[in-house]
């Protein structure tokens, strides 16, 4: 599990790569909280294009980020989940609380 962060003009892009399960989720959450504290972004883009696996632990991470951003008066959304991650997102119905942008190509 790796996280890459890129800040641009108040927008923070968090790119997740590898597998996000319960084993990795604690470290992920801590890293993400620190990044949000450091940059205090207005927008947080959760880029899942490089994520090869995610389960409900990933759903909890996404919901936490969304809550944090809403609490700061900002916004978050999910971009480009891979096939498996998208199926998990669809099954959990979180697209009712956070925008999920799927690029068609």
């Amino acid at each position, binding site marked *: 599990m790796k996280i890459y962060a890129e800040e641009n003009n108040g927008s923070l892009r968090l790119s997740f790569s590898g597998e996000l399960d319960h084993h990795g989720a604690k470290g992920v959450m801590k890293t993400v909280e620190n990044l949000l504290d450091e940059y205090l972004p207005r927008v947080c883009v959760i880029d899942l294009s490089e994520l090869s696996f995610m389960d*409900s632990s990933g759903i909890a991470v996404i919901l936490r980020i969304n809550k944090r951003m809403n609490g700061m008066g900002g916004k978050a959304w999910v971009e480009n989940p891979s096939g498996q991650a998208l*199926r998990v997102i669809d099954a*959990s119905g979180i697209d009712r609380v956070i925008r999920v942008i799927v690029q068609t190509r």
Partner: protein
Amino acid sequence: MENLDYIKMEFLSKSVNESFARAAVGAFAARLDPTLDELADIKTAVSEAVTNCIVHAYPGDIGLIRLRVRILERELLEITVKDGGVGIPDIKKAREPMYTTGGDDRSGMGFTIMESFMDKVRVRSAAGRGTSVTMSRRIRRRKPRL
């Protein structure tokens, strides 16, 4: 009948074993020639069931997780994940979407994901004696030309 087979294993309820369990079941299921989507669904369901044992069954403790994977009939994969932990007092409630006793770290979507990714999910539990989750999924047979 030539396909009937099973594996059994047990491992400790340490989170590092989550990816191991997914990979082991995936490797065994591969002989049914699943599509990549089917394989991903199976691994995701296993991840949910095993994570539940690690997170909920043995709070603050390490216990045993038993995993059995069977090929029943030619196209039917059955997975059982069993723990000897605290048990689930109200199974019906536990299976409801968003129900969790895990607080902010959990989303309460584990059973919902298992149910939508597998054909059948059966849960048995006894307070103080443990929980067993049996899930099955039919893998359509395809005709490879090579």
